[in-house]
């Protein structure tokens, strides 16, 4: 699976980093950054959690 991030929707909450630390980080303004686009099976649950808790609906999982 692939993660997509719409950075202009991001509100800098940091929820994605808490949910999936090895997939998301934040820049100095708090805006989310993707550390990787391709998601391994072992990361899938964490990224699904990030999609669910993101308060800006800025993260999507799509078939690679």
């Amino acid at each position, binding site marked *: 699976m692939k993660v997509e991030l719409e950075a202009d929707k991001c509100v800098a909450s940091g929820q994605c980093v808490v949910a999936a630390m090895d997939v998301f980080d934040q820049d*100095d303004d708090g805006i989310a950054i993707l550390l990787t686009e391709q998601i391994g099976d072992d990361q899938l649950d964490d990224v699904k959690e990030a999609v669910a808790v993101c*308060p800006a609906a800025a993260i999507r999982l799509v078939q690679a």
Partner: protein
Amino acid sequence: MRRIAVVGASAAGLSAAETLRREGYDGTITLVGEEPEPPYDRPPLSKQVLAAEWERDRLALRTSADLAALDLDLRLGVAATGLELVSRTVELGDGSEVPYDGLIVATGVRPRRLPGEGAHVLRTLDDALTLRERLRPGQRLVVVGAGFLGAEAAAVAWRLGAEVTVLEPAAVPLAHAVGAEVGRMLAQVHVDRGIDLRCGVTVTEVTEDGVRLAGGEEIEAHEVLVAIGSLPNTEWLEGSGLTVGDGLVCDQYCEAAKNVYAAGDVARWYNPLFGASMRIEHRTNAAEQGMAAARNLLAAEGARKPFAPVPYFWSDQYDMKIQAYGFLRGHDEVAVLEGDLAQRRFVVGYRTGDRVSGALAVGMPPKAIRRWRQAIATGAAWHETVRTGAPAAEV
């Protein structure tokens, strides 16, 4: 469990429905929502939507394909009007009934209003589009209430060239929530831009020409926005036997009665992390509590988890982003932890008893904030964490 009803189709209700599917539940999910639109996001309403930067298509919480994949029995544009706990049925406004084995209440809140006609409120997409139609350069807008919602709307209206007056009954806006010092600083940001902020002023009614104050004086305005807080949507639960008291009252599992849970703005639950009953009107809480309620509804007896989050809230005003963690209300002390209030770059901490109960940041990088969030989540002792200047736990 083969039939689950989720009432309220917004952030909390959607999150609950999605979580049910993620947890492998494959029975019927009936999602009932009074608004005709599919679930959309509210925070942008007082920001990008009001500023006419975003149109409605940017607000959808999920694409129609993602919604379809949830395989919902979706009932939009119809309200739940009653609940029968014994027969386990939700009654809808169109006369139909939804039988359930499990129920999640996520009906949110609605704006409090003032007597008189013609004022705007800001809760729904329609509200935002109606107000934005009227915000023109030179228009006189009176905002009643200097809370976060009123402050955001005032900031956008100012940017659009409106002449903005904000009327606030308290001596210092938001003092009860963030403390007087931070409240004064946040208010000053508006005053500096030329907003006419008047504190200690009580509005009694909306009139044809503006608003009337407690002393009888009238303030003229083309448009009036009332932003004086909200009321939980619990009327449909009256007579059901559920306990309602400023929200639907739940235990630490978000359970209101056997197999009946609540989530989001409407839910008043016991948060064991703070040892307090609370009702939180924050966007992230709606999603997190929707997840927690759904998981606990499906969980086997004894496998349920208490819902013990660190509440989180943000607000955007002009170029300033305010972020707050924890439960600030009723705090005993506020202290600057990092930075400087005057420079509008700081983290302040809130002490309740001897614990770090909250933190509020403006203009600070995420790392500076994250470690204070951690201190709140672990219930760090104030005297160990703050006096030494370093939080107990680094992240």
